[in-house]
């Protein structure tokens, strides 16, 4: 539909909604109103359903939810937001709900807008290498779809559980298996369709001007109004994501070292080559043979000779860094590790059973390379102080910074253990900020720490933007609030 016709249609819905509200002031049955929009099957206020949506799998305390609504179309999202805006009901958008920092657990009750029914892969443009997807499309379904229909293309897939959404990952500036080569998932966004809290449906990127979704600019960069905002500015209903060539061959080469202070230099040298696909650092205190710094480099290639050459080059690099004394190539990699390193996605969630307790949370930070040694040591110290075994997986983000994770497993059946994990997360977050790091996907508490440290003029800008876009403050309220 051309932009003008689309605008007309969406405006008609807004007008119709406004005219329908003749009984202003009268008691509004929220539940029935929501049912009238999506159908009864997709609205719940049952205690059992809201119980599940009032907590996530991390260590954050639960918070109450009043309604869960599962829209099936953009128009339903539009009508839900119009209604919520009219009645000043908080709305929290939810994809997979797996940030572990409870970003999808409302801070002020209201509606959880579960987007999983909007799960269509609308278009894959092979030539321009992008996929246009709805907000509920999971990582796994996009991956499987590409494998089946466009085997020469791939998207950047996080280590997260496969049912999480691609859109959720892009909106929190997440990172996937080709991030070291191509950047964060949010950098891969070509454009979006968004529903504003006041009901307007907008297209951002080239689709605002043309019928194609192949580029984000060159117009004002509006997707930035929705990326990193934790659902506080509107609901993304469609997203165009960049796809990348999928090389036929992949191999892993692993280096090990015990020299924490050498980490920045090693990362710099390994990324200086500009030939790797994925690159992460991993360690685990138990078993002993895992208690080293492992540099895991994934190489990929379109030709066997190309792969062999890359492997040779990287093996040679080890000999050059620190005169061959800093890192050494790990020979005879354990098959389980080999698989874990090459799997996309790996089954990283098994970390939740390290302590047979079903709990796992991590505080992550985007750090400059020079800050890694201090955080490495601090993370181990925090884990030990709380009686935990330290384990890390940190992914290098292109050749500029690193996503550093402070990981804590806990026992869900033990309140003290949950409190300890929460405390460990808080200590990590404070240390991240002290070390000039940037907390990633921070919980409400972490956001408060960030906002306190933020340049007041920037905080004011955030507030102004939120106010302009969401005048009644219905979108995921409690997030990115300026401290008074």
């Amino acid at each position: 539909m051309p932009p003008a016709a689309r605008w007309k249609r969406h405006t008609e819905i807004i007008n119709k909604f406004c005219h329908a509200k003749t009984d202003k002031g009268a008691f509004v049955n929220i539940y029935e109103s929501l049912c009238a929009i999506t159908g009864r099957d997709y609205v719940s206020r049952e205690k059992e359903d809201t119980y599940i949506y009032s907590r996530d799998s991390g260590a954050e305390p639960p918070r109450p939810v009043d309604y869960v609504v599962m829209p099936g179309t953009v128009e339903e999202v539009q009508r839900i937001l119009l209604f919520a805006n009219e009645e000043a009901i908080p709305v929290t958008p939810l994809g997979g709900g797996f940030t572990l920092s409870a970003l999808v657990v409302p801070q002020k009750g209201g509606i959880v807008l579960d987007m999983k029914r909007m799960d269509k892969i609308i278009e894959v443009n092979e030539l321009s290498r992008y996929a246009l997807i709805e907000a509920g499309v999971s990582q796994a379904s996009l991956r499987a779809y590409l494998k089946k229909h466009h085997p020469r293309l791939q998207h950047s897939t996080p280590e997260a559980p496969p049912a999480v959404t691609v859109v959720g990952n892009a909106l929190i500036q997440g990172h996937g298996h080709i991030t070291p080569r191509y950047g964060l998932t949010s950098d891969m966004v070509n454009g979006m369709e968004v529903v504003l809290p006041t009901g307007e449906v907008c297209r951002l990127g080239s689709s605002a001007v043309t019928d194609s979704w192949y580029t984000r600019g060159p117009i004002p960069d509006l997707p930035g109004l929705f990326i990193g905002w934790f659902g506080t500015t509107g609901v993304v209903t469609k997203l165009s994501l960049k796809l990348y060539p999928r090389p036929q061959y992949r191999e892993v080469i692993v280096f090990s070292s015990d020299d924490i202070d050498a980490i920045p230099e090693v990362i710099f040298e390994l990324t200086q080559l500009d030939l790797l696909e994925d690159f992460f650092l991993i360690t685990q205190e138990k078993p002993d043979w895992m208690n080293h710094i492992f540099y895991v480099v994934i190489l990929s290639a379109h030709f066997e000779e190309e792969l062999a050459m890359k492997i040779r080059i990287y093996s040679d690099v080890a000999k050059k860094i620190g005169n061959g004394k800093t890192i050494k190539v790990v020979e005879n990699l354990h098959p389980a590790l080999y698989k874990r390193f090459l799997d996309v996605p790996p089954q990283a969630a098994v970390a939740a059973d390290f302590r047979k307790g079903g709990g796992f949370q991590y505080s992550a930070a985007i750090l400059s390379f020079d800050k890694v040694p201090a955080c490495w040591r601090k993370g181990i110290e925090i884990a030990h102080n709380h009686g935990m075994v330290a384990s890390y997986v940190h992914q290098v983000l292109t050749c500029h910074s690193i996503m550093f994770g402070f990981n804590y497993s806990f026992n869900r059946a033990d309140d003290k253990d949950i409190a300890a994990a929460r405390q460990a997360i808080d200590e990590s977050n404070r240390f991240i900020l002290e070390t000039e790091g940037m907390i990633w996907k921070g919980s409400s508490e972490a956001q408060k720490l960030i906002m306190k440290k933020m340049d007041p003029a920037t905080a004011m800008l955030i507030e102004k933007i939120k106010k302009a876009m969401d005048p009644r403050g219905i979108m995921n309220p409690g997030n990115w609030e300026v401290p008074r």
Partner: protein
Amino acid sequence: MKYEDIIHRCFRCGFCKLTDDYEEFNCPPHKKYRLESFSPGGRMWLIRARIKGDVQISERYQQILYSCTLCANCVTHCIFPFKEDLVNIFTAARESLVEEGTLPPAVRDYLKSIQTYGNPYKEPSAKRGDWANGLSVPAYDGQEYLLYIGCVGSYDERARKIARSVALLLKTLNISFGILGAEEICDGNEVRALGETWLFEGLAQRNIEYFKTRNIKKIITLDPHAYNAFTLEYKTLGADLEVYHYTQILAEKTAALADRLKTDPLEVTYHDPCYLGRHNNLYDEPRKILAALPGVKFAEMVANRGNALCCGGGGGNFFSDILGGGKESPARIRVAQAKETGAGIISIACPQCAKMLEDAVKAEDLEDKLAVKDIAELVLSRLETK
């Protein structure tokens, strides 16, 4: 409740609701309702919440527990070491509802019928063997095998046809078998699945004793549900039985019929019943039978074997229908998956799946494109009458 020591270990990461390649959501109630509370992880967390007293027994809680088809997709795809216990945990949670006497009416009615009539159809036991009328199927009298039919095959009209086909085929193959007719007792698989362990154990003990007194050692079952009860559950209660599903017998014998089988082309797909496949790892035998049928081109569904979507009838839902119908019902989705293969026939090896899928074919308006046939019916239909 049993398993209280492991239930908190569920991270709710959601591998359990997917297939191997994570392509499809494959947990029937979650696929239908889409709410996280209806996923295996949601159920685990709710069961724990109930134990802790955070949620109370309610209609919704019952619906969430009983809409689960116990299809074991979660067992197959969970990544944690306790995965083998997932179905047991869901069954134990149902047990605690039975103990407290707070059951959904459909479940209560089912259990009452079994207690009163010995079958869920409220039919007299005397009619249990009527399915075999006119077939001259011998009564069990020391033959090599007992052919055990079960409640569905004995009383349900559609399933009776399958029972007749199986019996006829066994006769054609000169297998030495007999049936119990009116003396057959419900195997109790669904009773256990619905959480009535006490009643199940009673039925199982009666069957075990009866089999002993009749010196029955080898059983062929029509229904994978009975197969499941006899192989997995009766064993723990002391039964010493050699149990086969009829497809295991046919798999060995169909080739012997080769020169009597029609050769005209026919495209067939196969739906793996959960109690044969995921619960008991019998994936190859039905496929072996199909491969032995000349002219039959086998078209595998994308979701097959451990990834097969349950028909929606498992875990007692065939009777209680708590999962319910509608466009998003697993049977209708499964039929659509079958249609994608281009095959004209969905073959099955379970009377409950047959009925579920046949209803779905009607609901999807595909009657002129897809027929549901039990493997025994299919083999019989390929036999040349001389």
